[in-house]
């Protein structure tokens, strides 16, 4: 049974990637989870410089979902390379570095710096974080902004680059297309949905930042639709995510057109989810006699239904 998938020049042993911002820098989980057993580890979004992020409350639970407004707290790229990369290399993790800039130049600079770092497997361009004002999502909500960031980064790196798309747009597939045109190796989607929750007793927003990003099972049906739309529009691989909580959900994204998936919120609920997901995929492949998991990518059958009945 072959679970490996390919994202540009990067081969993943399986399609399961820990989603950025939901797995710390990976090292936090290194004692509980065999990092090398994951397809990849997307580390928390990095700016050039350290950031403190937003004041708490930073998360709030909603029906089958959660809002977050972390505000991209992080140690910055230099400390990341110094303090975290050695352990990630030692644990043989396939590292996807999620980068975020306030300006186009910052993305390019980050890409340049990371291109020389041993053990970095791919760059995920976070142009879709709904929680910060500067940069990020302003690129992700504009087709030319998206094109420019991808194109700028493309010029300075041979690492696979994966722009991460926001779902807060009318036509996400056009952003996938702009990314492809600009030379992206893949696109990943979705980042979180801009959302809010109010404490009616105090009449205040439940998050200090007023708005935050919705993730978790609640958004899965929208995310699957978006992956499906992008699949019709681009040829490059799609990394799908949004609410994956079991192996069936992984398969749903893959059938809709994803080559690999990321798991975010569900890791909070179950840090040991990875072996369960892998077992579920293997069980499915065995039951359905699927030799290579790549055979499932985009294998959604939209034809007519057969009719048959048993005395069930």
């Amino acid at each position, binding site marked *: 049974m072959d679970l490996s998938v390919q994202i540009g020049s990067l081969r993943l042993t399986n399609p399961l990637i820990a989603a950025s911002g939901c797995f710390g820098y990976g090292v*936090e989980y290194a004692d509980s989870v065999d990092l090398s057993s994951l397809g990849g580890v997307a580390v928390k979004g990095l700016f050039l410089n350290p950031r403190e992020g937003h004041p708490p*409350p930073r*998360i709030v639970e909603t029906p089958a979902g959660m809002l*977050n407004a*972390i505000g991209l707290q992080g140690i910055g790229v230099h400390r990341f390379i110094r303090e975290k990369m050695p352990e990630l290399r030692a644990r043989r993790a396939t590292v996807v570095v999620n980068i975020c800039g306030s300006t186009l130049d910052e993305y390019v600079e980050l890409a340049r710096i990371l291109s020389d770092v041993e053990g970095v497997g791919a760059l995920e361009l976070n142009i879709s974080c709904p929680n910060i004002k500067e940069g990020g999502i302003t690129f992700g909500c504009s087709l030319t902004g998206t094109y420019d960031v991808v194109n700028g980064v493309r010029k300075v790196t041979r690492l696979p680059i994966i722009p991460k798309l926001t779902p807060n747009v009318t036509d996400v597939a056009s952003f996938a297309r702009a990314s492809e045109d600009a030379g992206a190796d893949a696109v990943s989607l979705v980042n979180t949905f801009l959302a809010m929750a109010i404490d009616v007793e105090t009449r205040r927003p439940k998050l200090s930042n007023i708005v935050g990003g919705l993730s*978790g099972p609640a958004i899965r049906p929208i995310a699957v639709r978006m992956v499906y739309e992008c699949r019709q529009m681009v040829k490059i691989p799609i990394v799908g995510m949004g609410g994956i*909580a079991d192996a069936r959900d992984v398969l749903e994204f893959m059938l809709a057109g994803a080559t690999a998936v990321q798991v975010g919120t569900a890791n*909070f609920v*179950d840090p*040991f989810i990875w072996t369960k997901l892998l077992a579920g995929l293997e069980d499915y492949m065995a039951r359905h006699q699927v030799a290579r998991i790549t055979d499932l990518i985009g294998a959604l059958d939209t034809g007519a239904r057969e009719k048959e009945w048993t005395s069930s």
Partner: protein
Amino acid sequence: MPIDVEAPVIDNRRLSGEYNVLALAAPGIAAQARPGQFVMVKVGHGHDPLLRRPFSVFEILRDASGTPTGLTILNKQVGVSTSRLFDAAPGQRISCLGPLGKPFTVDPPGEAWMVAGGVGLAPFALLAEVLHARGTAMTLFYGARKAGELFYLDFFAQLGVRLILTTEDGSRGERGRVTGPLEREFAARPASAPVLTYACGPEGMLAAVARVAARADRPCEVSVERVMGCGMGGCYSCVIPVRGDDGQPHNVRSCIAGPVFAGDAIVWE
């Protein structure tokens, strides 16, 4: 290393209309847990509620030979998951992940003062047991809204803990907040007497305790309660400002750097 157990409920003892003690069969967690550590609990299947909830390890259960068999949590009903824990039936399985977080220092300089506000009592049963085994002299400053919300007094008394109680309505102990007697005790004690203060409760109380201890020039450890999404350092939801080497406050994840911090490390808001 934390483990995840589908722990059967052994017992659910109601202490009041809001508080209960839930006993869970989780030997693997119980064997590792140290005072001040916590578990992340999820009640029920399905995605609503979605996230786990943090609870201090209250007591360690042991069989006749002393082998850990499970743990209890002291639960206060405040919302969805705590209500389900209040109503949990024996036999029901509850997903329990732990132990997590940095424990209290169990090596106090002679005397241990524990300061508990309401459900903040939770980490002190286990701490008292461990310190009792070490022969440490202990005092518990314990404040609640009213007499009916002061629990486990006999338990602490049996361990030789001196009890100083306060209630907001004056129905038992001193009327007012727990920091009042704490301040007085500090004043009454020679500055050289070796006391380590531990506090758990609402954040305002922790800040006040830290202030009182600092003023008396005593060390203190506080266990903070921030909203936690994961308990493992994954989400950055649980941060608290801690003074860094540069003297500036930096947001630090209380689930892995805490929940226990030196009182003077935290930059109280």
